[in-house]
C-alpha cells in the first residue's frame, strides 16, 4: 500500500502543475466556448488515471517522481521536485536533520509513509461512504416521484431540478415548475444528459475521493462543476433565439433555491454561480472559427506538455542517487594532479558519508561535454554484487558517473573532499607508479595496495 500511496502522491503533484496551467488557461480563454474548459479538465483526469505515461523532451512537468521511492528505504530524505530552488531549500533543511539511524530513528521514512497511507485510505473510505449515503438518501426521496413524460419525473421532495442515474438517467423536477419555465429546465437537463455530464461529474468525484489530499484537486472539481453548467447553458442557448434567452434566465433565477456546497451526485439546475451563468447567457455570442481553432491547439499543446513525463533519470545517476552504504564492498578515492595521482582507500566507516555525498548527485545530462583540462577527483566504487562504478568530479564543473557527464551544482562539487593544491595532508595519499588513472576493476583490497605501490596499471581511458 505504501508504494501505491507514494505513486499517487507523485502523480497528484504532476497533475497539480497541470491544474494550475488549466486554471491559468481558463482565464486566458474566457471568450472560448466552455466545452474547451471541460475538455481541459478531461486532460487532467487522464493524467490522474493513467498509471503510465510517455516520456518526452517536450514535457512541461518539472518532475514525475517528486518524492522518490527510496524514501521508503532510507536513510536520507531527498526530494526531486524538478525545481532547483525548492529542491535546495527542502534538501538543505532536511539534510542535517534527517538521517535514519543517526538523527532520526531507523525506518522513520517507512513509518511515516505507512501512517500517511493509512490516513489517506481512511479519507477515501469516508468520502465513498458520504457519496453512497447521499445517493441513497436522494433515491429514497424521489421514489414516489410521478412521471411527467418519458424520463422526466416530478416530486414534492425536489427543491431544484436535477439529473439522477448513470445508466438510465432521469430528470427530476419540483411540482412547482410549469409551462415555459419547465420546458427550459427540461432542455437544460437534457443537454446535460446528451453531454454525458452525469458521467463526468461522477468520474470527477471519484478522482476527488482518491486524491482528496491535494487541495488543487478540490479546486479543479469545483471549477469543473462550474464549467459543466456553463457549457450546458451554452448548448441550450445555441438552439434558442435571443428573445427566448430572457425566459431562460428567468427560469434559472426561479430555480436558484437552496444551494448546497459540493454535492456528490446530482446535477442541480440552480446549483452553481447563478449570477455568472445569467451573465454568460445574456452575453453569449457564437465563437468564431479562429477562436475554436486556437482553443483546440491549446488543448493539444497542453496534452503534450503535461501528459508526458520529463526524461527519466539515466541509470548512472539513478545508481548514484540510490547508493546505499551497505551495498558498497570497497571504495577508493583518487585525485588526479599534474604532479601525479594521489590515492587512498576509504575505510568502511566512511562508506556512509560517501553514499550520502553521492545521493545528492544531480544535474542535467550532457551528451556532448566539453573536453576539460585540469584536476579531477575520482571515487572508484566496487559493489557487493560485483559491479564497479566510477564517479568523477572534473574541475568542479562536471560530475561524471560511469562515463555519463552531468552538469552538477558547483557548490556541491566544491564540497568534495581533497584539494587541488600540492600541499596535501600526509595521511591522505599514496602515489601510483606512473601517475596514470587507476582502472576501477583493478583496485585491490585495502591492505594490498598499501604494500604494492608499483602495480603499474595502464590508464584505461
Amino acid at each position, binding site marked *: 500500500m505504501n508504494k501505491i500511496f507514494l505513486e499517487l502522491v507523485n502523480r497528484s503533484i504532476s497533475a497539480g502543475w497541470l491544474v494550475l496551467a488549466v486554471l491559468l488557461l481558463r482565464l486566458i480563454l474566457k471568450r472560448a466556448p466552455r466545452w474547451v474548459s471541460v475538455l481541459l479538465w478531461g486532460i487532467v483526469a487522464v493524467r490522474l488515471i493513467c498509471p503510465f505515461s510517455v516520456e518526452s523532451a517536450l514535457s512541461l512537468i518539472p518532475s514525475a517522481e517528486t518524492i522518490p521511492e527510496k524514501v521508503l528505504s532510507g536513510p536520507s530524505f531527498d526530494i526531486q521536485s524538478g525545481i532547483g530552488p525548492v529542491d535546495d531549500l527542502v534538501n538543505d533543511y532536511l539534510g542535517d536533520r534527517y538521517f535514519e539511524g543517526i538523527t532520526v530513528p531507523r525506518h522513520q521514512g517507512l513509518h511515516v509513509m505507512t501512517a500517511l497511507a493509512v490516513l489517506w485510505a481512511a479519507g477515501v473510505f469516508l468520502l465513498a461512504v458520504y457519496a453512497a449515503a447521499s445517493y441513497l438518501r436522494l433515491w429514497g426521496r424521489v*421514489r*414516489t*416521484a*410521478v*412521471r411527467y413524460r418519458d424520463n422526466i*419525473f416530478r*416530486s*414534492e421532495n425536489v427543491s431544484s431540478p436535477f439529473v439522477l442515474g448513470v445508466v438510465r438517467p432521469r430528470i427530476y423536477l419540483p*411540482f412547482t415548475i410549469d409551462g415555459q419555465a419547465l420546458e427550459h429546465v427540461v432542455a437544460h437537463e437534457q443537454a446535460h444528459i446528451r453531454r454525458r455530464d452525469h458521467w463526468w461529474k461522477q468520474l470527477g468525484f471519484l478522482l476527488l475521493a482518491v486524491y482528496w489530499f491535494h487541495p488543487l484537486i478540490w479546486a479543479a472539481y469545483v471549477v469543473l462543476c462550474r464549467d459543466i453548467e456553463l457549457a450546458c447553458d451554452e448548448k441550450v442557448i445555441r438552439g434558442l433565439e435571443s428573445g427566448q434567452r430572457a425566459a431562460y434566465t428567468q427560469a434559472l433565477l426561479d430555480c436558484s433555491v437552496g444551494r448546497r456546497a459540493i454535492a456528490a451526485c446530482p446535477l442541480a439546475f440552480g446549483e452553481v454561480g447563478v449570477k455568472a451563468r445569467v451573465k454568460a447567457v445574456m452575453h453569449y455570442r457564437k465563437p468564431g472559427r479562429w477562436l475554436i481553432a486556437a482553443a483546440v491547439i491549446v488543448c493539444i499543446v497542453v496534452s503534450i506538455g503535461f501528459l508526458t513525463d520529463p526524461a527519466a533519470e539515466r541509470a548512472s545517476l539513478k545508481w548514484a542517487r540510490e547508493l546505499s552504504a551497505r551495498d558498497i564492498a570497497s571504495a577508493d578515492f583518487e585525485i588526479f594532479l599534474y604532479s601525479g595521482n594521489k590515492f587512498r582507500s576509504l575505510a568502511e566507516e566512511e562508506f556512509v558519508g560517501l553514499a550520502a555525498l553521492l545521493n545528492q548527485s544531480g544535474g542535467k545530462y550532457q551528451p556532448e561535454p566539453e573536453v576539460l583540462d585540469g584536476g579531477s577527483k575520482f571515487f572508484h566504487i566496487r559493489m557487493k554484487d560485483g559491479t564497479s562504478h566510477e564517479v568523477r568530479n572534473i574541475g568542479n564543473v562536471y560530475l561524471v558517473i560511469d562515463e555519463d557527464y552531468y552538469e552538477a551544482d558547483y557548490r556541491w562539487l566544491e564540497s568534495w573532499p581533497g584539494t587541488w593544491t600540492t600541499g596535501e595532508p600526509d595521511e591522505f595519499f599514496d602515489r601510483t607508479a606512473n601517475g596514470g588513472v587507476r582502472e576501477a576493476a583493478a583496485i585491490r583490497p585495502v591492505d594490498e595496495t598499501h604494500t604494492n605501490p608499483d602495480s603499474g596499471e595502464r590508464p584505461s581511458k
Partner: protein
Amino acid sequence: MSLPKIHESEYRFCLILWEHEPATAAELVRLCQEQLGWKRTTTYTVIKRLGERGVLKNENRTVTSLISKEEAQACEIDELVEKKFEGSLPAFIAAFTRHQDISGKELDEVQRMIDRIRKGGAQ
C-alpha cells in the same frame, strides 16, 4: 377540518384509487406503473403509509379509500384559504374570479351551488 395530510405524489395515487376502487393491490401496482411510472415496491410502500395514516384501508388485499375525493379536495381548499387568504372565503372567491375567465356555464353552476348552500343543504 383535520384530515390526514396527503402529499402531492400520494394525491396522484389517490386519484387513481378513487377512480378504480375497490381494487386489489396488484391492480393498483399495474395502474401506478402505467400512469405514474412507479415500481411495485413504491406502490406497496405508499399503500402502507396511507393505510397507517387512515386515508385508505387494505383488507384481504382489497384497497378502499376512507376519504372521498370531495372530502380531500374540500380539505385542500380549507387549507389554502386558511394559509393564503387569512381564512376569508370571499377573498378567495374574489381572487379566483379576478384571475380566471369563468364561462357563463360555470357561473351558473357556481350560482346554483351558492343557492344550495344558502338553502341549508350540504354538498
